[in-house]
């Protein structure tokens, strides 16, 4: 972003990579896949790089409003300094926080999830998707809570899967009734309370009931949880967990 500004340019969109997308080995692949698509579609974008910091979402959900607001205000100062207008992110938690919780603290931007952004590229004809290797494959989509219920985005990811000429199969609990993967509300960072099952295993069973070849996700945390669930069920050989951005990038051989 700093480089762009130095050149006197303002990008079309700021890509908020997020902590998972920056540091987590699995999520970094999603980040790179998304960047490949952006480049293919000639989208001028920028990232904050080392000037980006946690949005504060896990702190807020854990109850630490202080830490959340500290993070939020620091980020807002940076974003406002760069005069960011439109932000895209591949993490529904960053998406929700930036979109809904930053405005009250002075950060007002147009924030979209990467599935919505990809859908708009498609609608505008800037990106074409052909089925490629996913033609006819059974794909089920796991709704991230912070994309679906929290912000009512259900169709964009599904529209993209259908564009791949894949067979979209719905789990018995989907869309507004979708079951959480177990990572939200800062659960990602702690052990679960005593119970009789892990939530991600319960959710993976929902997914496996649809006999999918691929479980599509739209959130790096869901991705981790579902991948772990598949390992728990010893199905790594048969079922893959992939982000929507990866599906599209792979279909285009990007």
């Amino acid at each position, binding site marked *: 972003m700093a480089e762009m500004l130095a050149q006197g340019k303002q990008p079309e969109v700021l890509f908020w990579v997020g*902590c998972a997308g920056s540091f987590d080995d699995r999520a*970094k692949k999603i980040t790179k896949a998304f960047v490949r698509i952006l480049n293919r579609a000639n989208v001028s974008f920028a990232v904050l790089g080392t000037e980006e910091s946690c949005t504060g979402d896990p702190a807020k959900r854990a109850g*630490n409003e202080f830490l959340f607001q*500290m993070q939020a205000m620091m980020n807002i100062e940076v974003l406002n300094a760069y005069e960011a207008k439109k932000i895209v992110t591949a993490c529904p938690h960053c998406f929700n926080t930036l979109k809904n919780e930053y405005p009250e603290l002075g950060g007002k931007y147009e924030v979209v999830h990467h599935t919505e952004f990809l859908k708009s590229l498609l609608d505008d004809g800037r990106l074409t998707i052909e089925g490629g290797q996913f033609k006819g494959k059974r794909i089920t989509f796991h709704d991230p809570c912070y994309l679906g219920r929290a912000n009512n985005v259900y169709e964009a990811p599904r529209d993209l899967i259908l564009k791949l000429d894949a067979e979209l199969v719905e789990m018995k609990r989907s869309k507004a009734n979708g*079951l959480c993967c177990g990572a939200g509300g800062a659960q*990602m960072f702690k052990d679960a*309370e005593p119970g009789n099952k892990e939530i991600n295993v319960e959710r993976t069973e929902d997914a496996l009931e649809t006999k999918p070849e691929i479980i599509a996700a739209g959130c790096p945390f869901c991705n981790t949880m579902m991948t772990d669930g598949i390992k728990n069920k010893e199905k790594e050989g048969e079922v893959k967990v992939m982000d929507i951005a990866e599906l599209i990038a792979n279909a285009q051989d990007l």
Partner: protein
Amino acid sequence: MSYLDNILFAILLVIGFGYFYTNVKKIIRNINLGTDVNRSDNPKARGTNMAMIALGQSKMVKRPIAGALHIIVYVGFVIINIELLEIIIDGLFGTHRVFAFLGTTYDVLIASFEILALLVLVAVISFWIRRNIIKLKRFANPDLTGAPKNDANYILYFEVVLMTLFLLMNASDLHLQNVPGGFSHFIKAGSFPISQFIEPLFNGMSNELVMLLSEIFWWLHITGILIFMNYLYFSKHLHILLAFPNTYFANLNPQGQFDNLESVTKEVKLMMDPNADPFAAAPVDENAVPSKFGASDVQDLNWVQLLNAYTCTECGRCTSSCPANITGKKLSPRKIMMDTRDRMEEVGKNIDANKGIFIPDNKTLLNDYITPEELWACTSCNACVEECPVNISPLSIIMDMRRYLVMEQSAAPMPINAMMTNIENNGAPWQYNQQDRLNWKNE
């Protein structure tokens, strides 16, 4: 009818409505124990919500069987209560079927009351079977053992008794209407598609006995209704009234947007202001109450959260969709609401017993009712909020209590503390160097 009956009836009404009124005042007083939150914005969207969700039952039908049965009972309840107007006028003025002059309209009205009464009976019996024979998981859940389980069944029994009395009342009336040459004041009025089948029950009884029975049914019916109305306050059944304000005042923001703590914003702004004098004494405000972060008791919750607690009818849709509960954790969103109400009632009784002042009782909603283990099991996924047919938010209470645990007591689980320390130190929930954020670019 002698005037004695009318006077007795008037006294019954005054007692019934009078006692109800005192309890309504208690409910309002208890809800006002909560902190303020502004929900007066956007009346149009709020009105639409109320019309769709409370009046139109739009969220009930997400579960079609329960939804359809509920709509029958709901419509039955609302429509049959038109009959109540006639009963009250008849009772006060000694008239009999005062609306009979409506002719055909009256026939249609009575006929529809009867059909609805039968449908309500069927629905209520189905509800009873679902609870007690089939034992649907959400009704067999440990939250509902003891008093709450009995409460639910009492309500169903009440409805069975009231509907039966209504039909018996009509059947005996019809029997006397059919006496050749007429009998006493029993004019021919109304159409009785259901109670005509009950009417033969009275064959062989003297007309005087049937008339006595008819009067007994009439009195039991209205007395039953008044008792039921007064039972509301002591039961989960308040939702029939509170669903309306509850949906009106419900949160309109996206479910993912958690409220902003203004008190924190002030402090954070001060901390980040380079011109602030760190050694300056805080401005003295005589009336300032030291703000407490989060909630440990009902007085820390806002009034909408307390209204939520009174509105909850313990249907358990929230709990049955909660990922933590499904996987055997202690958290049950329904229990969060039930505990909040129980504690609010306890605080209310304390205030009543101490002439309007709350005397601390060494108990709090946190720990004595809701344990940290329950609170930390929540994934904040909003399934409970989405499911609630009357827009209750158990999640907002869970979050406010987590805030208290973390900001007032520093009592977060260890790994959560580690996560927060990482965010403070290196701007990410994991221990990675801030300078490595862009490394993915070259990998």
